[in-house]
């Protein structure tokens, strides 16, 4: 795997296709387990582990599994890993097991895992799929921890279980607060992301524009090329205006 490919997978998983904030997948555990930052980390890491394992196994078996029964096969593979994680957590971290409750078995029907299996692992090599699982899982974990931290600070006056102050707004730990914070998080993330993307795009346009006049200016025989350059010019202007 080349460095560029690795970079693309990492960027896609963490930002461009962030499962929680961009694609809005796996909403149930996000809303239910973001009452505290630690719960978010626990859930995120459990999902990341299962995502890596299932991506690797599905990628290994991608030529063996018949196309017609692939979805049931994926679900059984995922369910097996969820069962393993559940038994391990029950034995070694009972407090996390209790706080996750019914949402731990529900990782089986988490759209993120099935979605990555269907759209990535069943078409790519093992190493690529493992990386994709890792970064998609980390994107999910970061988002969950962030939402959890906001809700914990405002709703319980604490962060990672450490008490900060006595001031608290209980609305944020209730179910209504979950929808509120999650909705705002999506809106803010999308606004920032599209701003950054606009700036990046106008920069690449500017770079692409520079050599163009040099090529078409001397002879001016190629009307299509200059037309294209003009078009690129105007688009760049528009994007630049939007950014301002």
């Amino acid at each position, binding site marked *: 795997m080349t460095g560029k490919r690795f970079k693309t997978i990492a960027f896609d998983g963490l930002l461009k296709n962030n499962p929680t904030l961009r694609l*809005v*997948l796996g*909403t*149930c555990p996000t*809303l*239910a387990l973001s009452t505290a930052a630690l719960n978010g980390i626990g859930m995120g890491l459990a999902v990341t582990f299962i995502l890596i394992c299932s991506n690797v196994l599905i990628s290994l078996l991608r030529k063996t599994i018949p196309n017609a029964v692939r979805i*049931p096969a994926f*679900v*059984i593979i995922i*369910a*097996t890993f*969820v*069962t393993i994680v*559940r*038994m391990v957590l029950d034995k070694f971290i009972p407090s996390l097991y209790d706080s996750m409750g*019914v949402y731990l*078995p*529900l990782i*089986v*029907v*988490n*759209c993120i895992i*099935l979605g990555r299996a269907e759209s990535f692992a069943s078409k790519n090599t093992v190493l690529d799929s493992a990386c994709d699982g890792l970064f998609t899982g980390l994107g999910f974990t970061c988002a969950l921890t962030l939402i959890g931290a906001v809700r914990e600070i405002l709703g319980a006056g604490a962060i990672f279980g450490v008490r900060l102050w006595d001031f608290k707004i209980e609305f944020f730990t*209730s*179910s*209504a*607060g*979950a*929808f*509120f914070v*999650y*909705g*705002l998080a*999506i*809106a*803010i993330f*999308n*606004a920032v992301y*599209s701003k950054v993307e606009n700036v990046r795009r106008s920069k690449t346009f500017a770079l692409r524009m520079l050599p163009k006049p040099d090529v078409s200016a001397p002879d001016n025989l190629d009307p299509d090329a200059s037309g294209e350059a003009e078009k690129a010019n105007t688009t760049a202007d528009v994007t630049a205006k939007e950014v301002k």
Partner: protein
Amino acid sequence: MGTFFTILIIAVFVNNFVVVQFLGICPFLGVSKKTNNALGMGIAVTLVMTITCLITYPIYEYILTPLGLEYLEIIVFIFVIAALVQMIERAIKRFSPSLYQAMGIYLPLITTNCAVLGVAELVIDKAQMMSLLGISSMNLGVAVLYGLFAGVGFTVSIVIMSGLREKIDHLKMPGPMKGFPITMMAACFMAMGFYVFNMIG
């Protein structure tokens, strides 16, 4: 009779599956653009949830527990739900083509609906169910009723949501708030409404 109403109130309002327990959020956000579609999805989910409880509860109680195979519950349940959804789809197609036209497209989606697996997992946790409903013993009847009314609760919230969204889509709002964020805000106010039912308990 008292138990019946307790289950009804608790499953539909106090512990509403969608806005209080966050189960089945994906269809709640995905299939709530039109009231008709939302109602079709709600009825299909209610049907599958009821029958799921009817099948998974005895399987867990009389097959997995005596054999000491409780750890297989997730795999068995997801298998039962997938098979059940397939069978219901075939049966509806065979006996009522018009009904199939109306809700056939929602049935395949239900296999990966957290609400269905969630209700199967919830009703086998006896201690929690008994303290939640305030009853002294748990049996198949209670499990099936809980499944039925949890499905009704799901239908109620998804229909309310679709009504709200039909209005919201025509409003002016800042760009980034369009789509999911504003839907989440609407859900936030719905959750506040349902929070009031907590006071009943």
